[in-house]
């Protein structure tokens, strides 16, 4: 799992520029699926044929994109101005190393006169070490993507921290589930979606292509187990989180009940999730065509959208097992 995560982390995939990570995912799934396709927006859809005569269409989705930045302007003194792609917390991103899509490195810092309550795109720049526009333009171009540099820290108790866990951990769960899954009756369309962080745009077109009967996303969810956090029952180490609701979707009760039953029957640790802020690809899959029965299995995570997003590998394993048990039941 750690090896796979490192590969996924290192393949930068800021929304709209997901190709590098899709290549990694495609290579990982090679030999485990019957067909792998990319669509016009860049979604990767891996198909696994079921053995049933009348298979249902089950769509799985994890988003392969990550939050980051887009270069908008290069100043005379070589400083690079950027705009956020997705939900960037400026406070959490500042004084961090930043990697551009071509590998160039820089550091993200606020203007010297920026007050903390003014933090925003206008008050931040990336210092790439160049002292004038001309030399900076040789390395970085307007329109280029960048992200806070990836890192993966192994902590005590089987926990890991780093970025971008959201949602490469979900991608890893689905890759692992596809590898372990042997016998299954339904047709499975495992989608690695683009542009979730800017509004679940990839999931919309991917689910139009699949037209699923049943759909299940795998994404990260917040927790309520750290000092000062909001009331939320989900905790790190509490098992796979079966989503009931977030601000984008009310999961279909049938799927919540079915996933809960499968977890109970197979002794998989689980918890129910109600997320009061944030959304996921489930929202788009549920509305595809005439609608699908839709849910989500979430990886409980702390410090989402920072450089130290944290999860428990035991929860990750529980998510993989829940997917495999559900699909092969």
């Amino acid at each position: 799992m750690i090896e796979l995560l490192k590969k996924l982390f290192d393949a930068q995939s800021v929304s709209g520029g997901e190709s590098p990570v899709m290549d990694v995912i495609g290579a990982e799934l090679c030999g485990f699926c019957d067909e792998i396709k990319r669509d016009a927006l860049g979604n990767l859809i891996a198909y696994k044929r079921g053995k049933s005569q009348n298979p249902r269409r089950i769509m799985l989705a994890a988003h392969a994109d990550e939050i980051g930045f887009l270069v908008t302007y290069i100043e005379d003194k070589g400083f690079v101005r950027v705009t956020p792609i997705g939900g960037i917390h400026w406070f959490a991103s500042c004084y961090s190393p930043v990697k551009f899509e071509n590998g160039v490195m820089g550091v993200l810092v606020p203007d010297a006169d920026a007050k903390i309550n003014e933090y925003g795109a206008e008050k931040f720049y990336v210092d790439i070490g160049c002292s004038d526009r001309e030399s900076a333009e040789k390395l970085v171009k307007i329109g280029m993507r960048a992200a806070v540099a990836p890192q993966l820290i192994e902590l005590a108790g089987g926990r890991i921290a780093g970025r971008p866990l959201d949602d490469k951990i979900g991608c890893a769960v689905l890759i692992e589930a596809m590898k372990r899954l042997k016998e299954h009756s339904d047709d499975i369309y495992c989608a690695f979606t683009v542009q979730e962080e800017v509004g679940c745009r990839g999931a919309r077109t991917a689910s139009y292509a699949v037209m699923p009967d049943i759909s299940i996303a795998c994404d990260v969810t917040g927790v309520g187990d750290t000092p000062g956090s909001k009331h939320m029952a989900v905790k790190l180490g509490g098992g796979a989180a079966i989503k009931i609701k977030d601000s984008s979707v009310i999961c279909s009760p049938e799927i919540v009940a079915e996933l809960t039953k499968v977890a109970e029957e197979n002794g998989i640790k689980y918890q129910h999730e109600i997320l009061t802020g944030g959304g996921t690809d489930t929202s788009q899959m549920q509305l595809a065509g005439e609608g699908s029965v839709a849910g989500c299995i979430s990886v409980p995570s702390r410090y989402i959208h920072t450089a130290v997003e944290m999860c428990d590998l035991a929860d990750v394993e529980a998510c993989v097992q829940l997917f495999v048990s559900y699909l092969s039941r």
Partner: protein
Amino acid sequence: MDAKFELLSKLSHAFGPTGCEYEVKDIIKEEIEGLADEIYTDRLGNLIAVVRGKGEGRLMLAAHTDEVGFMITNIDDDGTLRIDAVGIDPRVMCGRQVVVGNDPRNGAKEKTRVYGIVGSKPIHLQGGDEGSRANRIEDLYIDIGATDRGDAEKYVQPGDYGTFVTEFKELAGGLIMGKAIDDRFGCAVMVETIKWLRSEKVTPPCDVYFAFTVREENGLSGARVAAFEINPTKAIVLEATAVADIAEVPDSMRVAELGKGGAISLMDRATIYSTELVNHAFEVAKKYGIKCQPKRYVSGGTDAGVIHRTREGVPTLGISAPCRYIHSATSVFHRDDYDSVCQLVRHLITE
């Protein structure tokens, strides 16, 4: 003004607030009559012209026919009209000449056009914080000269539409001003493109669908259904963008500059544009020496927001006319940018 801008001048003067774009579409239809292989209007009112190509897919070009405007919500006892705005900044409305009207194709008894002026309480009578804050939409009314409600009802009904009255004129330095440049600029470029394809007898590699969309300013609803029906393999949205190239805006926050060619969108609030198409556009521009520039600062949204998410997804490019003061009574663009965008679109269609 030279003949080149006659079409855009005509389109700029046309009455086309969101939901009542008939006059604009009538002009376009007349211009392209007999030139396209097929011309039709869909159920929401989008006007679509098809030029058949050699069959290598379907390219959708889109420009919206509607302009920012307002709707009459109520006629007061004194004969003045209360309004709700669509896309207009109420702070820039007071004292402007406006035209109010409707169309029989929109359920009205007859085609009407009535002139008026946007009024608010005179400065002499203002109290409290009224003098120190900008007008809100509820502070404004339209005076059409009617003596009372009964008189006003002879000319206007609640639900009628309105927009500014602005003359299309040339300024110094190659600049031109007029209303509704957002997005009659795009409409004019599309009409010119159809004419060019026919006069030069060019058969494009793919079928080209020119979608003159409705209701962009009210949530992109026209483009959404047009794109679903056309089912394009790629799309180019032609728009007008704010530029913020004025004194108090620092360089790093400027969107684009007048006279430096069409602004190619990288990202806005509704769309991340196709990197392949963006790179291709810059390459084509460079190859033929056509000016174009990146749209730098990320703001607003265009029809691309719904087009790129249509069906299984559509790689989409956005080219905008750099335009000062959009969403007001008068916007300003550079005449050279019109040529640059026309040239770029021709090459993008044929390559």
